[in-house]
């Protein structure tokens, strides 16, 4: 549905995005990750046709965004970074404006009512957007983006500035919408990736460094299969754990002396070994669980190792 090919954007000498290629299909929710300034927003601006790429192309639903922008834009719903909206309008006026440009015709009122319910905008419908809280502004922006039931939904940091309740609501909204749509969500909140994304792309310095399912990324983590153990009483399991052949190292926690985490060597599993050990030593286990891996850890490692590589022709370091 969305096809990005060899997309590059230079601002003078600065390479904001460099030869980025990926494809997203209907039903997929693509998480777009990267440190600040990695080129996430620039890429989204190019996909939605706001800025034109230095080279490369984007096509949406078969329409090239550069050559046939109006048709491509008609298929997309877009929440720009910071959710800009006309401050002097009320959400009702603003949504009617969007509905009119989107040519919703007779369906407009029904659709507006629907999205207003979905995003719980009823209380602020007739207050100027200027006077709304950050959370409401963001929801007005999302309402505008989904108003025409677009095939492709592009959301630049949709949960930024929302409180935990609102974050949860927006995430479930995205999950509900995703069934038949192609969704691209940028974020720097990694927990969001597990919550909503079926696939994640990590970019650093404008280049692609990973493109995988969240589970696959977690599996790259040092903590993949790590076992955290907490014993009751005054038993210190550290020495016994370190003696296990599958254990790479053992971590302790400054806030809880009795809790330890055993990190396995690459491609080995620990849970069964530790269970057997606990039985053998007759430990009184208070808590024991294995981890899927830590995205944050993988993210940091990928971005770090990428930025240490010398970039060809320098510049965007």
């Amino acid at each position, binding site marked *: 549905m969305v096809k990005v090919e060899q997309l590059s954007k230079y601002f003078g000498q600065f390479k904001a995005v460099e030869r980025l290629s990926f494809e997203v299909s209907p039903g997929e929710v693509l998480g777009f990750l990267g440190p600040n300034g990695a080129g996430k927003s620039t890429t989204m601006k190019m996909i939605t046709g706001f800025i034109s790429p230095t080279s490369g192309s984007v096509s949406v639903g078969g329409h090239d965004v550069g050559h046939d*922008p109006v048709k491509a834009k008609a298929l997309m719903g877009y929440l720009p970074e910071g959710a800009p909206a006309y401050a002097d309008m009320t959400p009702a006026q603003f949504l009617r404006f969007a509905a009119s440009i989107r040519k919703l015709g007779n369906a407009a009122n029904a659709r507006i009512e629907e999205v207003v319910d979905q995003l719980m905008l009823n209380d602020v419908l007739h207050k100027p957007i200027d006077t709304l809280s950050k959370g409401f502004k963001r929801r007005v922006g999302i309402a505008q983006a989904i108003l025409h039931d677009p095939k492709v939904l592009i959301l630049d940091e949709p949960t930024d500035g929302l409180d935990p309740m609102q974050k949860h609501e927006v995430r479930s909204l995205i999950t509900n919408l995703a069934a038949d749509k192609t969704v691209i969500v940028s974020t720097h909140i990694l927990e969001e990736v597990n919550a909503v994304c079926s696939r994640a792309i990590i970019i650093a310095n404008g280049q692609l460094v990973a493109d995988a399912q969240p589970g696959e990324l977690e599996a790259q983590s040092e903590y993949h299969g790590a076992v955290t153990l907490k014993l009751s009483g005054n038993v210190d399991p550290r020495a016994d754990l370190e003696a296990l052949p599958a254990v790479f190292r053992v971590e302790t926690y400054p806030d809880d002396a009795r809790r330890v985490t055993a990190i396995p060597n690459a491609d080995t599993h620990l849970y069964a070994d530790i269970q057997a050990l606990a039985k053998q030593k007759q430990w009184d286990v208070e808590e024991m669980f294995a981890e899927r891996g830590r995205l944050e850890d993988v993210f940091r490692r990928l971005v770090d190792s990428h930025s240490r590589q010398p970039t060809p022709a320098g510049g965007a370091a």
Partner: protein
Amino acid sequence: MIATVFKRELASYFSTPLAYVFIVIFLMLSAALTFFLGGWYERSQADLLPFFGFHPWLYLFLVPAIAMRLWAEERKSGTIELLLTLPITVFQAVLGKYLAAWVFIGIALALTFPMWLTVNYLGSPDNGVILAAYLGSWLMAGAFLAVGSCMSAATNNQVIAFILSVVVCFMFILAGFTLVFDVFKDWAPLPLLDAITSLSFLSHYQAISRGVLDLRDVAFFIVMILAWLLATAIVIDIKKAS
């Protein structure tokens, strides 16, 4: 498309005090200039020449004040990204916003109708000439506005947009003055001299406001407006990338 952008934009003028402040100032200044500086009453002639004579100078400052926010504000608030990712072309957006501002100035101009009533009460003017002058005045305001639209697209800063538009509009007024003409007349080739004088907003406006509704004068303003709007669209296309 254009109509939707137009309606939103026009409504936005009246949702803030901007519209009312502008209209009041425009009406007060145009009346004050006509009566005090123009000596309209003392002239005891049944026409509105002093009234229309001040319009170029009034527009020189008031029209850029309206135009400066056209694009600079969209860019500053980020709504430009929203507007230009909707399924419309840049030119449709430019035209929609421009027409709203132009119609708004037209409304302000139409509200000077008490002048027309007064002159009709006091004497029997040639109302055809007055109508032509109103049309000419509105066209000239449109040309000022199109220049301002382009300047507003070229910068994020409304004050800079304002100053640039005043300067460029001032040059288009001056082009018709003998003062400027004299500078060029000794050395410039005749075609260039003709080109410079024919660019003058003032001479085309004065021709219309005397009641000579020559198609060439009307066409001049319309071509001028379209050219500056096209330039606006191009500037936006270039500028939005950065």
